[in-house]
């Protein structure tokens, strides 16, 4: 016999069993019973945000930076719909969060009751799974299933919609220790035949490239990636989501590929004969024109989600498995065959020579200008000063791409960025989640002047929690990435990319009780960065940058990745 308790209590008990220590949320009439239980549960720290979108992004940032499941709570109706962008953001990047929403009482569902919205209907295409709980008897199992589904297989967001009467109803709390869902059985172990085939391809390769995606981060396979890359002497390139999956400062790193990837990464992929892709899904920002993507390559694709394989590109050796286990097996085979490191070094010598030619021909670079701060310079300096040890969140746009290019992410879970959905306003609330999950670590949000205004209200949340986040606004006075497209492809017709009113970000910081600073000259960059990095306070640093600086290289949308516009 389990203990008898209310549905609201069950929620809190389940959170405890799942090891949840921090939740992000915002109350309302339909979730008030859960809040009443949170009030009685000091072990769970509730972070009161200022907008439910902020709660969802914070839960997401917490999950991305810690690897644990993030939790967000909202009320019915507008509270629930406010989480939608956050849920979609987590879905596109396969991030495990559980969102709990209040709902009107079951007997009112379907009546257009006050603050009723069909949130399970709305979120069906943007959740890994969702539940509308109709009976108290089902609640313990659903809570267990929600966490299990969110975290296992290809992770993703799960929503639980909880009607008010179910929160108030009493039932027996039998929380399953383990759960088995007959219709949900992710494949973790690779097919050993496929692993052997992959090895044979690598053995025959003359110009291999190792492509690392976000799956490497979520499966915790960074050390296997490194071991494999070093053992076989493979050039490694990463997707945006894969950055940190292999050290960006490593000799074998070619940096990011794709639309704003490095020249040498895109050239290497375009000319490789074997592409080993792990936990990457061949998004159009990575492939460019699909027919011209790795046209000479046999492709080995490891992914836990079978539907990612053969979706966008034709794969020669599909391997459905957890990235970490698949790479472990592959390493076993490599060791069994036993060709020494020297052999591989020798084998790919010519290929590396070619890559070095590309690297020297067009390194990542920008033009300095004594009158303006260049954003790339800011990121470079930030990398130097933090030695790559910070957790860097980004907003979306040019700020995000400069960060991806110039900060050499050394470890997994140190870049927190909305890749798949490209959600402006993600970075700052995500940094709140990241800082909550990593107290004592340096957490920085690289922002744009547009993006930061999308969830700027969360400054109050960060101050409530005394979080010493550093917000660095790369302020170009533009919706810069859109402006760049207009410059390059729309005859410089700058439609709707300049705000008439730009707030004084220094004063905004001060209004919230944070520190605000502004710099405008290149020589101010280093000393000011040093200063703010040593402060144990929330700081907004407004960096006025060259207004029309672009992100290069750039592959125009739909073009082959070799058709790059260089600086």
């Amino acid at each position, binding site marked *: 016999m389990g203990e008898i308790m209310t549905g609201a209590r069950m929620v809190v008990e389940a959170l405890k069993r799942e090891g949840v220590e921090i939740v992000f949320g915002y109350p309302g009439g339909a979730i008030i019973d859960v809040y009443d239980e949170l009030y009685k549960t000091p072990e769970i720290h509730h972070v009161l945000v200022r907008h439910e979108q902020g709660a969802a992004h914070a839960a997401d940032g917490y999950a991305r930076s810690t690897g644990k499941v993030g939790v967000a709570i909202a009320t019915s109706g507008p509270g629930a719909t406010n989480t939608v962008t956050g849920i979609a953001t987590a879905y596109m990047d396969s991030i495990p969060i559980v969102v709990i929403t209040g709902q009107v009482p079951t007997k009112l569902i379907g009546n257009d009751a006050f603050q009723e919205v069909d949130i399970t209907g709305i979120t069906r*295409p943007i959740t890994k799974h969702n539940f509308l709980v109709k009976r108290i008897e089902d609640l313990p199992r659903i809570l267990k299933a929600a966490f299990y589904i969110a975290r296992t297989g290809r992770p993703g967001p799960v929503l639980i919609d909880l009607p008010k009467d179910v929160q108030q109803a009493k039932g027996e709390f039998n929380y399953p220790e383990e759960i088995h869902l007959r*219709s949900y059985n992710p494949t973790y172990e690779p097919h050993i035949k496929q692993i052997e085939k992959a090895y044979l391809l690598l053995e025959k390769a003359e110009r291999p490239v190792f492509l690392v995606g976000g799956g490497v981060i979520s499966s915790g396979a960074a050390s296997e990636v490194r071991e494999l890359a070093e053992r076989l002497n493979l050039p490694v390139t990463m997707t945006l989501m894969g950055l940190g999956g292999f050290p960006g400062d490593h000799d074998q790193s070619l940096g990011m590929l794709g639309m704003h990837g490095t020249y040498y990464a895109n050239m290497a992929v375009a000319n490789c004969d074997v592409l080993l892709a792990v936990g990457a899904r061949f998004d159009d920002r990575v492939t460019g024109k699909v027919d011209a993507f790795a046209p000479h390559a046999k492709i080995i694709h490891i992914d836990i989600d*079978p539907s990612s394989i*053969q979706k966008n590109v034709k794969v020669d050796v599909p391997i459905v498995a957890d990235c970490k286990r698949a790479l472990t097996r592959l390493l076993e085979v490599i060791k069994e065959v036993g060709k020494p490191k020297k052999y591989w070094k020798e084998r790919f010598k010519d290929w590396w020579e070619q890559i070095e030619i590309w690297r020297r021909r067009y390194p990542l670079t920008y033009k300095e200008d004594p009158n303006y701060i260049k954003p790339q310079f800011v990121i470079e300096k930030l990398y130097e000063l933090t030695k790559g040890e910070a957790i860097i969140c980004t907003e979306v746009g040019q700020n995000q791409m400069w960060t991806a290019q110039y900060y050499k992410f050394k470890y997994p879970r140190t870049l927190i960025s909305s890749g798949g959905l490209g959600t402006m306003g993600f970075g700052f609330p995500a940094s709140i989640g990241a800082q909550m999950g990593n107290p004592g670590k340096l957490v920085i949000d690289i922002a744009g002047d547009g993006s930061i205004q999308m969830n700027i209200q969360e400054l109050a949340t960060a101050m409530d929690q005394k979080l010493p986040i550093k917000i660095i606004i790369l302020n170009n006075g533009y919706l810069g990435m859109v402006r760049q497209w207009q410059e390059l492809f729309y005859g410089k017709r700058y439609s709707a990319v300049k705000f008439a009113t730009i707030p004084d970000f220094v004063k905004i910081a001060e209004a919230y009780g944070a520190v605000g600073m502004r710099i405008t000259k290149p020589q101010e960059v280093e000393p000011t960065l040093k200063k703010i990095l040593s402060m144990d306070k929330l700081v907004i640093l407004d960096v006025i940058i060259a207004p029309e600086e672009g992100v290069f290289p750039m592959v125009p949308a739909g073009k082959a990745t070799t058709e790059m516009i260089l600086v």
Partner: protein
Amino acid sequence: MAERKCTLSVLVENTPGALARIAGLFSGRGFNIDSLCVAETLDPTLSHLTLVTRGDEQIIEQIIKQLRRLIDVYKVVDVTEEGDFVEREMALIKVRAEKENREEIYRICEIFRLKIVDVSPRTYIIEVTGDKDKLDAVIELLRPMGIKEIVRTGLIAMKREKKNP
């Protein structure tokens, strides 16, 4: 790549959202549904769904993988690919049955072994079961009499057991 028709037999958890999720997957990802037939199975916790769709091999592969990705989907079988299967569809046809064409209707019913399941002074309702070709043929033959209404169930399909295992 050439398009083909594909009949999928899908077992899903009998939960309220399951069907909506499947329908949403098809509309959201731009896949076609030619017909869809849903009913309970022997196990009341599972529903069975026969879904007819079309696409080239790559699209069909995606459809099957995307279906399997849904947490509520227990099993997906491409019966068309497995080859040996029985397909049936039923239609109810309300046809004008004036004195002068009743003879002809009877004859068609006899040849195709159709059932007249309702009779009114001026119309019959005819039940026809068979594969798609048979239904189409019957409809074409009855059309000259004056068809007032047709309701079709959509296809259901079942794999045959191997004859010599």
